[in-house]
């Protein structure tokens, strides 16, 4: 059976949804953060598959930017998480609720 473009798009859509659900339903900040990274990587898969399918490199160039941005975001995010752990001794989002809506 041939692996067509749609397979890649489906796979990345599924990964993206898993990431979204992880963000919405997990309580541990680190896991939420990992879910966000999963979303970004799902999009990377879409971009690479589309770029390959169309024979155009622009999509792959964007993937480079996404990878490096994700790394910068990881550094900043982990720093913020460390700061909040030092202040509140927890990484559970339901316990981080100083401000009320």
């Amino acid at each position: 059976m041939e692996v067509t473009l749609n397979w890649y798009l489906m796979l990345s859509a599924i990964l993206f949804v898993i990431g979204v659900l992880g963000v919405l339903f997990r309580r541990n900040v680190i896991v939420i953060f990992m879910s966000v990274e999963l979303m970004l990587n799902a999009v990377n898969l879409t971009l690479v598959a589309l770029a390959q399918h169309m024979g155009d490199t622009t999509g792959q160039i964007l993937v480079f930017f996404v990878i490096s941005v994700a790394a910068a975001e990881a550094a900043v995010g982990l720093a913020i998480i460390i700061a909040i752990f030092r202040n509140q001794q927890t990484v559970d989002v339901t316990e981080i609720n100083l401000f009320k809506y």
Partner: protein
Amino acid sequence: MLAEYGPFFIQLGLAIVLAFAFLKGAALLGPSRPNRIKQMPYESGMDPIGTARTRYSVKFYLVAMIFIVFDVEVVFLYPWAASFERFLDAGVGLEVLGVVTIFVIILAVGLVYDIKKGGLEFD
């Protein structure tokens, strides 16, 4: 079909044979004077007995974060390196080199900052 993978299987077989030969050879030829410390699973590492949730220095995270950032920035150098020859042939090699030098200088600024702020000091 399968014949195309012939070299691969030969390589696999060689790897297995060699791995066993080295392991057995080391055991047979080397001196064996076991003591308590040498018998530990991680001879020079952390003691694996006890809770894994001990606190350790936040410096580990710091180094990991710095590593991620600098490691990933290298992705921009791969496409540059892969297409450098074509730019060279087109006669713009110096310009392309200049552009990537600017990029590396920006990274170096980050490294200088990191070193001066003590991000790489362990003690």
